[in-house]
C-alpha cells in the first residue's frame, strides 16, 4: 500500500481509532511524517539488505474487525504454546486487539499497567512525533496504533513477577497490527518484561511494533523479546531506549519466526553509569529474511554497552546483523564490546554482518568481532572421538551455540526444544537432562 493510500485510509477511519483530539492530531502529524519519508528503500545504507517492497505492494487490511470470540480457540491454542502458568501476569492480544488482561488489577501501589487504548483515551498522546524522528515505520505505528500497553513504575518500585505481553496472530488476511508498548521506570524501579509474538501457520499479518523504554536514574529493566511468528508473517519493530545515570537495560531478543523481519534497536546511554547488555539469537531458514539493526549512542561519559548477537542460518535462510556503536564527542571512560557470531548450516543460506564503530573521543575501550562459519571441525572430532555420532555431534554443537543466548531467558528448556524442532537437530541424549546434585 502506498503512503498516499495509507494516509487516505487513516483520514477516513480516524474515528475508529482510540484517543483524544490531541491523539488524533498526533496521528495526523505522524502520518504526514511517514508520507513525506515514504517506506525506507534499499538506496538507504541502513536498508541495503532488506526490501520492504512486499509491504508497499501489499493490499493491507488496516481496520480489521475484532475477531470473535476473543480469544478465539485458535488463539487460545497458540497461547498454550507459550507455556505460562495460569497465574502469570499476562496481557493477551489477538490480531491487534486486547483479548485478556490478567494483570492490571493485581499490581501493587505505584505500579501501573494499562492498555494503550485506555491510555490514549484517558491521558492523551503518550508518544510524540519527535520521539520517532527519522524512523518512518515508527511514525506509521504512531499514526495507526490501536493497542498495546503502557507500564509505569514509581520510584523504587519493583515487579514481583515478570509481565508478559503476548501478541498472537491467527488471521489469514494480510492485516496490519501496530502495537505500541511504553515502559517508564522511575528512579531505582525494577521490572522484568517478556514480549511474545506468536502466530499460526496460516497467519499472514504484518506487525509493525514500537517499543519505547525510558529508564530514570538507577532503574533496571530486563526485557525479553521472543518473536516466533508463523512462516508467512511480516514483522518490523523499533525498540527505542533512553537510559539515565546508573540505569541498566538487559535485553534478550530472539527471532525464530516470520518471513520478513526487521528489528531496529536504538539505545541512548545519556548519563554516567548507564549500561546496556544486549543479546540476540536469530534462526533463519526456508526463505526467511531476518535483519537486526542495532545502534548504541554513548552520549554520557562512563557508559557501557555489551552486544552479543548470534545468527543460525539454514536452508535458504538469510540473516543480517548491523551493529553500530557511536561514542560521542567530549565523553570519557566509555566501554563497548560487540560480538557477532554466525553459524551457516547450508550452502544456500546467506549472512551479512557488519559491525560499525564511530568513535569521537579518546578515553575509550571498544572491541568488536564477527565470525561467520560452519561448525568447528575440532570440536566435532572431539565429540565423535567420545563415541557420539556425526549427526548427533553436529546437533549438539548447533544447540550449544544457541543455548549460550537462550540461557539468559526464563524458559531456556522450552526455547531449546523450539530450536531443536525448528532446525531438526539430532541429539545424542535428552537435552533437558540435568545432573542431580
Amino acid at each position: 500500500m502506498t503512503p498516499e493510500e495509507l494516509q487516505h485510509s487513516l483520514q477516513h477511519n480516524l474515528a475508529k481509532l482510540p484517543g483524544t483530539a490531541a491523539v488524533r492530531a498526533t496521528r495526523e502529524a505522524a502520518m504526514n511524517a511517514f508520507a513525506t519519508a515514504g517506506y525506507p528503500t534499499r538506496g538507504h545504507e541502513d536498508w541495503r539488505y532488506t526490501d520492504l517492497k512486499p509491504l508497499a505492494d501489499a493490499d493491507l487490511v488496516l481496520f480489521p474487525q475484532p475477531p470473535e470470540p476473543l480469544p478465539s480457540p485458535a488463539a487460545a491454542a497458540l497461547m498454550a504454546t507459550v507455556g505460562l502458568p495460569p497465574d502469570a501476569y499476562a496481557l493477551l492480544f489477538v490480531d491487534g486487539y486486547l483479548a485478556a488482561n490478567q494483570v492490571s488489577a493485581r499490581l501493587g501501589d505505584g505500579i501501573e499497567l494499562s492498555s494503550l487504548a485506555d491510555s490514549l483515551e484517558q491521558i492523551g498522546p503518550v508518544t510524540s512525533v519527535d520521539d520517532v524522528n527519522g524512523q518512518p515505520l515508527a511514525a506509521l505505528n504512531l499514526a495507526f496504533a490501536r493497542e498495546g500497553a503502557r507500564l509505569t513504575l514509581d520510584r523504587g518500585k519493583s515487579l514481583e513477577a515478570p509481565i508478559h505481553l503476548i501478541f498472537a496472530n491467527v488471521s489469514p488476511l494480510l492485516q496490519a497490527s501496530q502495537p505500541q508498548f511504553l515502559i517508564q521506570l522511575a528512579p531505582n524501579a525494577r521490572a522484568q518484561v517478556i514480549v511474545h509474538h506468536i502466530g499460526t501457520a496460516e497467519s499472514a499479518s504484518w506487525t509493525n511494533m514500537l517499543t519505547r523504554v525510558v529508564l530514570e536514574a538507577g532503574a533496571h529493566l530486563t526485557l525479553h523479546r521472543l518473536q516466533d511468528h508463523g512462516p508467512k508473517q511480516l514483522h518490523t519493530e523499533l525498540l527505542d531506549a533512553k537510559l539515565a545515570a546508573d540505569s541498566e537495560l538487559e535485553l534478550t531478543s530472539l527471532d525464530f519466526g516470520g518471513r520478513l523481519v526487521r528489528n531496529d534497536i536504538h539505545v541512548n546511554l545519556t548519563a554516567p553509569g548507564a549500561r546496556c547488555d544486549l543479546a540476540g539469537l536469530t534462526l533463519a531458514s526456508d526463505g526467511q529474511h531476518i535483519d537486526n539493526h542495532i545502534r548504541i549512542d554513548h552520549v554520557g561519559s562512563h557508559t557501557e554497552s555489551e552486544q552479543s548477537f548470534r545468527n543460525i542460518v539454514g536452508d535458504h535462510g538469510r540473516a543480517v546483523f548491523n551493529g553500530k556503536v557511536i561514542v560521542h564527542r567530549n565523553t570519557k571512560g566509555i566501554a563497548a564490546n560487540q560480538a557477532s557470531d554466525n553459524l551457516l548450516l547450508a550452502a544456500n543460506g546467506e549472512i551479512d554482518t557488519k559491525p560499525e564503530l564511530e568513535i569521537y573521543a579518546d578515553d575509550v575501550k571498544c572491541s568488536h568481532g564477527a565470525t561467520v562459519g560452519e561448525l568447528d571441525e575440532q570440536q566435532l572430532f572431539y565429540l565423535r572421538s567420545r563415541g557420539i555420532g556425526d549427526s548427533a555431534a553436529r546437533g549438539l554443537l548447533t544447540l550449544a551455540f544457541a543455548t549460550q543466548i537462550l540461557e539468559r531467558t526464563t524458559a531456556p528448556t522450552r526455547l531449546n526444544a523450539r530450536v531443536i524442532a525448528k532446525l531438526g537437530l539430532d541429539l545424542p541424549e535428552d537435552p533437558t537432562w540435568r545432573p542431580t546434585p
Partner: protein
Amino acid sequence: MLAIKSLSVSVQNQAILKGLTLTVGAGEVHAIMGPNGSGKSTLAQVLAGRDGYEVTNGSVEFLGEDLLAMLPEERARAGLFLAFQYPLEIPGVNNAYLLKAALNAQRKSHGEPELDAFEFMRLIKENMEFVQISQDFLSRSVNAGFSGGEKKRNEILQMLTLRPRLAVLDETDSGLDVDALKIVAKGVNSLRGPDRSMILITHYARLLELIEPDHVHVLAGGRIVKSGDRTLALELDERGYDWVQEQAKSA
C-alpha cells in the same frame, strides 16, 4: 589388541609416519617417546580417526577389526580412547551431558541398557572424587575456562567413565604440575588390567616414573627406531634423543 603394520601417513602431501610397526598386546602399557616433530601426535590422531591424515600404506588392526575403516565414533564405541594433548573447549555443552552421551553411545553399541540417572550420577561422582574434581564441574561447559591441569584431569575422568580397551594418552603429562601428574597417574594405574592396554605418548620420562611401562619405544623420523624396557626411558632422559637417531641412521 592393536597391530600397526608398516603404517605410512601423510599430511598435506608431506610424509609424517614412514612405515611404523607396533604391536600392543592385551594388558600391556607401551610408552612412545621421541623428539618434537617425530610423528607422535600424528600417530595418536590417526588412531582416533581424525580427518586430514592420509594413510598411504600399511594397516592397523584393533581387536581383530580394520581400525582404519571405522569412523571416529565407531572406534570410540569399540573401546578406543584418545586423551587429547589439547582438549577442546565446548561452551554450551555441560560436562555431565557429554559424559552421559558418550557412555550411553558406547553401551548402546554393545547392546547394553543405558544407565539411569541415578546409576550414572553414582558412577560419575565416584570417578570425580578419584581425580579430585569438584561437584560444580558437572554443570559447567566442557573444558571452558578450565586450567591446563583441569582439562587433563577431565580427560582422565572421561577415560575412567568410558573404561576403554585401549587408551592412547597424547602428552597428557605436558604442562602439569607434580600434584596433577600424580592424579593423572593414579587414574591411569587404576585402569591397568589384563584386558586393557595403553599407549603413553610423552616427551619426558617423568610420567613413566609414576606409570611404569612394559615397553618403551623411540619414534623418530616417522618410524620406531629403538625399543626396550623402562630403563630405555631413563637413558633417554639422561642422554637425550640424538644418540638414538645416530644409531638408527648408521644401522
